[in-house]
């Protein structure tokens, strides 16, 4: 649809596209200030033959109002298209196009090499408006550090936070680097802050790779972790479980003694024996309950510490 619209408008206003699509890049330097192009400087010669044929067939259609699009690329000298129509080489001065949606493309120098840079944009151009499109297709330098380090872009203002962007090796857009400073951080090494522009220079000299060696702090080996607290010690945890189990078992024995005392209490006829055995029974019952409770608490707690690792 974008292509059709372009051709439709071109048919109505044939002198809309830049006259020098195949001119040497240096001869097409964009003006510093953007203004509406002089219609005398444009001609229909730029139209590709196929688009001209298409335009002829659509000549009857009504013209659409114009907008202007200027294109700058980094590096300069790239082939630029509006839709599928080749319009020249970057930098491209403001060039009249039918208003509406326009897909602007610039083609990388070596398209075999993968670059994550965006090489095209779709812009909505209102009638009479001039839009400046800037595409940065420079190679993204690879930032290497020895050792691998966390890389942060330092904030331009003191009150703004720095931005962590990843771990080396990492490719970053030149536009991100050129006006910023970068910090490399790695454990056991001094933080290194270098200007992004320096990294770009290094990358230019090193076939796209900038290497940074971090200075070792020669720090003593990290202190051993603190010993676990008493609750975290295995012998203590196992001890709790063992003692808890013993107390639980002991409670059963004490309880059994209570049962024997109770049996003697039931069988006795001597009031002194009855009183003594009854007291013994109560004593054993209480002792048994206390032992059992303590045992179960210790057993459960020991098991809990063992399984969860809490206390380490």
């Amino acid at each position: 649809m974008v292509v059709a619209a372009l051709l439709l408008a071109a048919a109505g206003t044939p002198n809309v596209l830049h006259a020098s699509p195949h001119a040497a890049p240096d001869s097409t330097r964009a003006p510093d200030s953007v203004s509406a192009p002089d219609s005398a400087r444009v001609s229909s010669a730029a139209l590709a033959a196929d688009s001209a044929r298409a335009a002829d067939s659509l000549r009857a259609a009504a013209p659409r109002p114009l907008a202007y699009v200027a294109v700058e690329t980094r590096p300069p000298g790239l082939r630029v298209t509006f839709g599928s129509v080749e319009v020249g080489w970057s930098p491209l001065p403001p060039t009249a196009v039918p208003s509406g949606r326009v897909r602007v493309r610039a083609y990388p120098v070596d398209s075999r090499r993968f670059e994550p840079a965006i090489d095209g944009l779709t812009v909505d151009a209102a009638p009479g408006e001039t839009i400046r499109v800037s595409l940065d297709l420079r190679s993204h330098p690879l930032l290497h550090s020895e050792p691998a380090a966390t890389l942060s872009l330092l904030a331009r203002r003191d009150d703004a936070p720095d931005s962590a962007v990843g771990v080396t090796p990492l490719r970053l857009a030149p536009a991100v680097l050129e006006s910023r400073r970068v910090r490399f951080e790695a454990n056991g090494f001094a933080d290194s802050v270098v200007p992004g522009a320096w990294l770009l220079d290094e990358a230019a000299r090193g076939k796209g790779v900038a290497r940074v060696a971090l200075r070792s702090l020669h720090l003593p080996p990290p202190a051993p972790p603190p010993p676990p607290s008493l609750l975290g010690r295995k012998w203590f945890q196992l001890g709790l479980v063992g003692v808890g189990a013993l107390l639980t078992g002991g409670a059963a024995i004490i309880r059994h003694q209570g049962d024997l005392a109770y049996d003697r209490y039931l069988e006795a006829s001597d009031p002194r024996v009855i009183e003594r055995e009854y007291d013994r029974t109560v004593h054993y019952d209480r002792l048994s309950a206390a032992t059992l409770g303590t045992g179960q608490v210790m057993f459960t707690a020991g098991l809990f510490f063992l399984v969860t690792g809490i206390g380490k």
Partner: protein
Amino acid sequence: MKKTRLLLALASAALLAAPASSWAQYYAFGKNKVQYDTFHWLSLKGEHVEVFYYPEEEPLARAAIVLAEESYADLAKKFQHEVPRSVPLIVFSTHHHFEQNNVSPFFVPEGVQGFTEFMKGRVVLPYTGSYGEFRHVIHHEMVHVFQFSILEEVYKKNRRSTYVVPPLWFSEGLAEYWSNEWDAQGEMVVADQVLEGDVPAISELWRYNGTFTIYKLGQSLCEHIGKTYGDDALRRLYTEIYKDDRFERLLQRVTGVSAKRISEDWQYALKRRYFPHVKDRTGLTLAAEERAMSQGVNLKPVAVPDTSLFGGHRYLFVSARSGYTNIYSASYKGRERDVKSIVRGQRNAQFESFHPFQSRIGVSAKGQLAFVSKWSGKDALFLMDLATKEITLRRHMDGLIALSSPAWSPDGSKIAFAGQSNDGQADLFSLDVASGEVTRLTNDRYTDADPSWSPDGTRLVFASDRTRFGAEGRHNLFLLDTATLDVTYLTYGKWTDQTPSWSPDGSQIAFASDRDGAFALYTVDATGNGSRVSRTLGTSLDPSWTPDGKSLLFTGYRKGGFGIYQIPVTESRSDSFALALDDAAAPPQWTWETTLARSTQPAESYEPRYGLDLVSGGLSYNPNENVGQGVQGAVSDLLGNRLFVFQLGNTAEKSSDILTRMNAGAWYVNRQHRWNYGVGAFHLAGDYEDAIGIDYFERRAGASIVASYPFSRFDRIEGTAQAFYDQKDRGDGNPREGFLTTHGVSLIRDNALWFGTGPRDGSRYNLTGSVTTNWNTGRAENLTLSADLRRYLRISQWTTLAMRVQGRMSNGADPERFVMGGTHSLRGYDRRSLFGTRVFLANVEYRFPLLHHVVIGLPFDGLELPTIDGAVFADAGNAWEKFESFPTPKGSLGFSLRTNLGGYLVLRYDVARRTDFKDIQPGWHREFYLGFDF
């Protein structure tokens, strides 16, 4: 499943308070859905969608909200409908994290890329490393959101006694049709069905429910309906669903054509499309030789470079032929020749999953196997010496959650692999085996996968969506210089090239590509000039060179299954191509940042929002067949991490008992952490009957704590503690009243493999101990110990020897009594006819298939009988009291028939004769029973 069990445990905690039952009575098995990670949730609110995420994956969340809002806008037009509420979209950065979700109580299989839950309309999905796939899945699930929303609205407006639920082929097929172009996966499934003459009619599509096939058959059929009768017909199938009782009649109402006719038209259109393939392509089995073919899932072959190892000329592959996924070795000198299991997966924690559809395996020249496996919540790289079968390395990679496709460098010093980090980013890495140092080779948000080394070790070839067509889900091949990390295009086009493999002499790179529709094998040299290996029917994937460089082992898809094939690589080629970077015809280079820049929503912290999960009446809450009337329900938050369970009922028979016989309980369950725990309070009262038939009244009021800690997917420890006031009256003039506590601990293991009627492989056990103490007397009311061990020995693919040993004992003033007899314990004896405070039981049975896929012709016109399994068994066991001496075991012998009813229930019929181990007693004892095999 773990959560389900925790609920069961809670329920049993309530019961246990009740009455003469102990926690030990509730044998629980099952695997664990482990929350290895604790996520701190945030949300982004869009106009129609709210995304829930954790801070590490913020870029994914921002992409998700942009893509979901795009999908919403598209679908709102297609469905002419607005969803009346904000759509909750829960995003996980990896599939490993996704598997920990608490929205669904079930395990999420690796093949599931997302789901939409009906009750609260939640969409849950992971990022699997591919932007295109992420967009596709979001769009697919958003179709389901609209489907549910329209159904809800239509049924609310037009109430019916019965509601038609759209069949799976339609709901999933439409979601695929409206979210994705027809792709190579569809081509793989549907072309195979057509050429094998298996395309079902609409009325038969249900047979494929639960398989991937239904998605693609459904997509094909929806596309046919959409293109023949207009896409609006698809919408009207939802808006007019209330008008008919059967979906096929609705189809006729909307299209004006019968479903039978639509089926015929669709089948004919498919034949016109795919039959011409036969003319200019060779059948897979004619062009290539079959290697490992058994049981339909054989993937990722790789030849052992040392042809003298294992008797020579062997290859390794991943297969689910046994039901578990294992790594096998076999000889490529014949079909299914000398197949041996090398690494057995899915049975223990360290080999939980080999990701057979995502990850290749690698073998070094020295015979070291490299593979990845999920272990303790994330993937680890494993190295195994194939000669000694010893694991020589087992390593998690710092910061990486998912790993895939380890590839040895030719000198055996390095391993390249793909890794996905906590934030979802998928890159390539290299491990120096000697030093253990890991080097990052790529570092961006593009997906990089399946690296393969050049023979000189200076370059890697890999597949990536960094191509200009990557935003649409396409992958091309790239070369990476390992010194400069420069990346260059090797192939280029609007298709997917994947799984490259560099030939031993370095002259060619084999790969699979869908540039011609279905995936087929191609080779390309390092400058981008290539050709097709062979024009074959079907789909070919995962090529791997044999050591002589003269043939390829690959995965082929045919007749609905994946098999390993071998094809010679000859000089005569077809479909040559050269690398041509046609920039003008291609879209501009894409980046994630373009999408991310469109999300400007501020992040908000997640505040739990609760909604009802279920309410049901007629609560049944006692294993001893006592039933109490009442209601129970559950309320959980949006992420399913926090759950409230409540129940309310009353067993009063007169108004004065209303308070004393109130049954009420409420529990809070937290599932956010690896420790799952629940706390609650209850009051239970009623008349009960114990194991030996004595009636009694019991009332309990107190609080309980239940906790579960999974060591892995297969092992866990569970514990419970309760404190309660208890009144118990057996009517014997000796009522008990006191303050009681109960503690219980269980150790559980389960790695069983299930078939339709029960487990068929693996093992499981449950060791439980519990003690109940009366604090008024200091007496142990009961101390109960139980052990239940089960082992399933696979005799052949479909037959199993199953064994079970159980022992239980209970001591104390009020010991628990166990019952025995009947089909679930000692067969040949009446249910619950044996009881005591001590029991032992041993069962052995041989399980085998009896009827599978039996179809009756006349007079039923192709009626398929349900699958019926058989078993022959021998049981021994008895029960006795503490004061009795060990009794003579009672035994039985017999046979059994079992069939699965609808996937959820098993009907069993046991026929047994008793034995005293001297003679077999006369008389057959028969019993029907509903329940799975032990």
